[in-house]
């Protein structure tokens, strides 16, 4: 075991312990020392496992054994990769698609929430992962979608489907409004400004009583409806079916999610997607090679906003209710956590992280309180140990490792 690693590990753990302290010592509240130290122990444990893993991986024995096992491993890997990706996707679709048939209402509700956050994560992934623009106010677009649908529906009786394109356009416009002044900013400025923008939108929703009913929120939007032809005794007629049941809403959200995945995937592999990557890598170089950076950055914001707007509308329709407190900064953080922990720029990563981050705390309700605590710490530790996320995007992984090599110092 490398001595310097052990030393680093000890110091790192100690400092983490200091960070836990504010949760221990403040008298008069529920959070007791034992629990705080359990959390600390857990984190240190994870770090220790990581250290052990690293040590083993660098030990002679591991290297020797792994050299022997390499051919075997390769055959196994080859066998698995021979199964085309679409088999996996099909399997996933069947599982997710048949999930409501097996689950109770509560679980379906959790499933819907998961899907909502996955779509939000994928939308934010366009902005953060593909274009490399850190957006901390992403939830504002979700709010824009929710409120556009609510207002259109309540005041003009416009249906869900018709309000979707309107919501998308409004969302995209808002994306551009936010994007435009921030175009030339560096990353951390951008982060705070988008954070501020998110807050502005929330404050506007909260304070503009006449339009939004302020903190009371809007109530009574109709559910999405589908119209289908039916042949009854009297002949042919159109039947309006309101998607009231959780099952129906789940499948609607499922379809939205599938469309989002397809959309984001196509974007990623398109000319636009490559241009975004170019902007992320070296904006000046991209601009000099004729990539219209301004336009593309705005497009990234607009696209991200459009996806959020769609789920926002869905969310408002599902609850028939919306209020500004659904769209606080912490929500943006959750979405960002999903993107970051899953792997910036990686679609399967975002899906996996969405499931883990939303479903796990829902299932283990007693963990609910610690959810953000854990996410926050995970985000920091993840950046240090495995910045590429749970399932790294192929392109991204290469970049991150190149970055390691080009800094020979220390």
């Amino acid at each position, binding site marked *: 075991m490398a001595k310097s690693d052990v030393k680093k590990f000890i*110091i*790192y753990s100690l*400092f983490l312990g*200091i*960070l*836990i*302290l*504010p*949760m221990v*010592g*403040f*008298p008069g*509240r*529920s959070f007791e020392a034992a629990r*705080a130290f359990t959390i600390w122990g857990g984190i240190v444990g994870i770090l220790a496992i990581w250290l052990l893993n690293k040590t083993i991986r660098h030990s002679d024995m591991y290297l020797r054994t792994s050299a022997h096992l390499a051919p075997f491993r390769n055959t196994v890997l080859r066998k698995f990769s021979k199964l085309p990706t679409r088999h996996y996707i099909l399997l996933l679709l069947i599982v997710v698609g048949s999930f409501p048939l097996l689950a109770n209402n509560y679980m379906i509700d959790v499933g819907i929430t998961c899907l909502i956050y996955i779509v939000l994560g994928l939308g934010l992934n366009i902005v953060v992962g593909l274009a*490399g*623009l*850190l957006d*901390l106010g992403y939830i504002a677009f979700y709010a824009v979608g929710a409120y556009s649908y609510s207002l259109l529906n309540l005041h003009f009786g416009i249906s869900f489907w018709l309000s979707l394109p309107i919501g998308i356009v409004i969302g995209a416009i808002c994306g551009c409004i936010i994007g435009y*002044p*921030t175009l*030339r*900013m*560096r*990353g*951390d*400025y*951008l*982060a*705070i*400004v988008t*954070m*501020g*923008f998110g*807050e*502005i939108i929330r*404050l506007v929703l909260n*304070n503009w009583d006449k339009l939004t009913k302020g903190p009371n929120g809007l109530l009574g939007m109709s559910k999405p409806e589908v119209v289908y032809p039916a042949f009854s005794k009297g002949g042919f007629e159109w039947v309006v079916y309101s998607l009231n049941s959780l099952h129906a809403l789940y499948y609607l959200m499922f379809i939205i999610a599938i469309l989002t995945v397809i959309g984001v995937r196509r974007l990623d592999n398109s000319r636009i997607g490559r241009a975004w990557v170019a902007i992320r890598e070296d904006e000046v170089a991209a601009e000099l090679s004729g990539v219209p950076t301004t336009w593309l950055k705005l497009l990234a914001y607009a696209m991200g906003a459009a996806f959020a707007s769609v789920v926002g509308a869905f969310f408002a329709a599902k609850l028939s209710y919306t209020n500004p407190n659904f769209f606080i*900064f*912490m929500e943006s*953080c959750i979405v*960002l956590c999903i993107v970051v922990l899953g792997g910036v720029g990686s679609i399967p990563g975002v899906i996996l992280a969405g499931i883990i981050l939303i479903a796990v705390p829902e299932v283990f309700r007693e963990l609910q*309180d*610690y959810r*953000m*605590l854990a*996410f*926050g*710490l*995970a*985000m*920091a*530790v*993840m*950046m*240090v140990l495995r*910045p590429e996320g749970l399932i790294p995007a192929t392109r991204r992984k290469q970049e*991150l490792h190149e*970055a390691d090599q080009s800094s020979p110092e*220390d």
Partner: protein
Amino acid sequence: MDNASFIIQQLINAIFLGSIYSLIALGYTMVYGIIELINFAHGELFTAGAFIGIIVLAALQNMGFVETHFVLTLILVFGMAMAYVAVLGVAIEHVAYKPLRKASRLAAILSALGMSIFLSNGMMLSQGVSDRAYPAIFGLKGFSILDARIAYGQIFIIILSLVLMVALNMFVNWTKLGKAMRATAQNQTMARMLGIDIDRTIRVTFMIGPALGAAAGVMVGMYYGSVRFDMGFIYMIKAFAAAILGGIGSIPGAVLGGIIIGGVEVLWSAFLPSEWKDVTTFVVLILVLYLRPSGILGEHVSESRV
């Protein structure tokens, strides 16, 4: 109340808010100056300072210490809050920033943001979601100018923040370590070649900045009489606006920016609907970034990306 006393009252408010924003903005600007990153956890450090203040103050009050040793109480409250948060600042630097000094900017920002989420939720768990009342130690004693009431507490807070700013200025300009900090901020490689241990200077920066923020936290608690786990958020954005307005990286700039932002806010709340005052700050921030990203006193800021 007549116009003159109204103006005096508002002026005191503006000076108070301005100095609070300045103190927090100093933390941003110093950290930014030295590692070119915004300390996202700074707002939480400010809040942590406020809570430590409550704890120490409550403990001292229970012991009946406040009546007998009033000055010592103040020193203890501010001293302990600042010292504790300084340690916290170093811990954050070590956990979230130091390992990522050579990584991409995005990674460092995200890890700092993670720390911020972590701390803010930690404080929520340990302190609850509701407001906590700050023990009132100054009472309501004060004096009047015309009809405007000015509490001694307000005067004390304003003077203390001035003292802290002057002390910081002296430290940075007159001491060897302070000068080394400035040198590191201006040219890290050269600073190292002259034998300056930049790890140490960065650590010191992460102690001083958060300590100033902690002092601001205690002051806010004493002034408004209550604190909440998430109050750091709004102060953080305003102080950041102040730091940017003054020119990030510039210490006098942070003070100037803080006073301007505080002044604008007070003016706005005095004459216009106050629920929109936060929106005003954001708008100011965005306008400044758009029109003059280097701020009033700032050096040229390179417009590089993440």
